[in-house]
């Protein structure tokens, strides 16, 4: 082979080589704004909860119970970015209602594109919005989650039956936001995605699946016996006890990044 051709070949190879290296240094991928559906799977131990009251469950104290209503507020949602800071989802107020299929999720819209490694949210409604007057959407008082006699939202509503309860009924309406009276029952849940990550990128709606185990509402740190506590319908110490229990009922399960 002619020497000049060899030289050309060498030059081209070197150029290609460096160009190929340059390609690795291209500007980073841009992610587009998208939606995230945070799905709450309500279970009792290992089975999905039946809110028709036809399934018998057993609490930590060995007492039988059924469930006829399960509703709770998930609000003030934040997503943990890779750099360790949180993105606050504006105006994020969602009502989860087990009896309505379309209300098993919190749909977060217009989330900045990117990769997230955790989620943080409040179970309940922040104190300001408890006294902000007539509101719409999830905070509409027509959702039957507001104490009209003592202005404030019911954060978590669980109803059912139990043979251990003197009335036969279980009525747990948990609420209260006044810290001055030691009645603030709002609780913050922080969940890491572990080795998974959430990718928000444009039209494909990503899903984060969280499991909420109702059994945890009645144990840890306080084991609840329905014989002694089966009716809570106002702010106070009992509401706080149950809120301290249910704060750890949520576990991160898995993510669908919508690809």
């Amino acid at each position, binding site marked *: 082979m002619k020497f000049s051709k060899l030289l050309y070949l060498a030059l081209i190879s070197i150029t290609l080589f460096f160009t190929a290296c340059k390609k690795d240094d291209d500007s980073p991928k841009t992610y587009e704004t998208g939606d995230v559906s945070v799905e709450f799977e309500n279970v009792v131990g290992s089975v999905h909860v039946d809110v028709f009251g036809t399934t018998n469950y057993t609490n930590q104290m060995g007492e039988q119970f059924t469930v006829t209503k399960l509703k709770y507020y998930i609000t003030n949602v934040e997503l943990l970015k890779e750099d360790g800071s949180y993105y606050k989802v504006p105006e994020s107020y969602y009502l989860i209602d087990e009896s309505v299929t379309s209300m098993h999720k919190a749909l977060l819209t217009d989330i900045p594109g990117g990769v997230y490694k955790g989620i943080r949210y409040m179970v309940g409604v922040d104190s300001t919005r408890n006294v902000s007057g007539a509101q719409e959407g999830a905070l509409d008082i027509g*959702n039957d989650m507001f104490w009209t006699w*003592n*202005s404030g939202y019911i954060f978590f509503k669980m109803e059912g039956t139990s043979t251990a309860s003197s009335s036969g009924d279980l009525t747990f309406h948990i609420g209260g936001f006044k810290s001055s009276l030691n009645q603030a029952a709002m609780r913050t849940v922080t969940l890491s995605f572990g080795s998974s990550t959430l990718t928000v990128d444009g039209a494909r709606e990503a899903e984060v699946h969280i499991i909420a185990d109702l059994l945890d509402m009645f144990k840890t740190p306080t084991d609840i016996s329905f014989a002694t506590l089966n009716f809570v319908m106002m702010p106070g110490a009992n509401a706080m006890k149950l809120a301290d229990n249910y704060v750890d009922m949520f576990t991160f399960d898995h993510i669908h990044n919508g690809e």
Partner: protein
Amino acid sequence: MRNNVFKIVCWSALLLLGSCVKDEDSNSNEVKFYIPNNFPQPVYTFANNEITQSGFELGRKLFYDPILSRDSSISCGNCHQQNVAFANADHRLSHGVDGLNGTRNSPALFNLAWYPSFFWDGGVTNIEVQAAAPIVNPIEMDETIANCVMKLSRSKTYPKLFKNAFGNDSITSKKMLLALTQFMTALISADSKYDQYVAGKVQLTSNEKSGLDLFRQKCESCHKEPLFSDRSYRNNGLDFSFGKDAGRAHITSLASDSGKFTVPSLRNVALTYPYMHDGRMKDLTAVMNHYSNGVKPSSTLDSLLQGGIPLSNQEKLDIISFLNTLTDNTFINDRRFSEVQ
């Protein structure tokens, strides 16, 4: 003859013109919020809910409409009657759907934009959600908010009224409540004989003036002018113990609040008998006697009422004379606040 015809024509013309000149007051239908002389700034900010004529009229219609009760038998106006300043005339307690009796005396409604809380125990802290409480109470109107919205949406008349007031005909609980709020906050009572006296327009009789002086010495601390209430919660010595109705403690769960009730405004008090949170006192004489001789001690009795308020019979009479000057006839006769037939 021509002269007479001319005269008749002229007089007729004059009469015709005269009848065309409208009396400004009687035809003025417009409602505005205003701050009367000497009143402080209101608590309600009207943010996103300025009073508009269509919003006010929708709120008024809702106020008098029994559609908001389960069986369409009870409206707000049943227990809040304009001729007694929107209290419940001559009723110790009110009765709701199915004739069920309530537990507390229906408060009069006026000057609500100045109140930081509502009810005898202050349980409601934003006037926008006040109306929801009697609507859903099983012993009052026994209806759900969702049903109210559904009934209004299905009615032949309301969707258009909501469209006029809010720009579109989709009815939500928020819009319903905002309209009611516009009506309620428009109810301003500040034109009693007392108000006119303070403005220098009228004189009080000597008994009324003595009564005012006594009032300022002995009643003012709680029934502060010009609202005639400081809207605090106090135990005014009605009972030794409060198992039946703990008042403010029902809201705070604090033992120190047991037996405390909201200090009511005394405006229009001559109209709003019977008195106290459970309507136990039938007239102002009974109230005067209570304060002078009937105050019952308990651990939460207001410190200002230890030992009661000694009053001679003449002093009682004078105070009652003064209290009668707080009746606002302009307010109770204002057609803008009345039910439209």
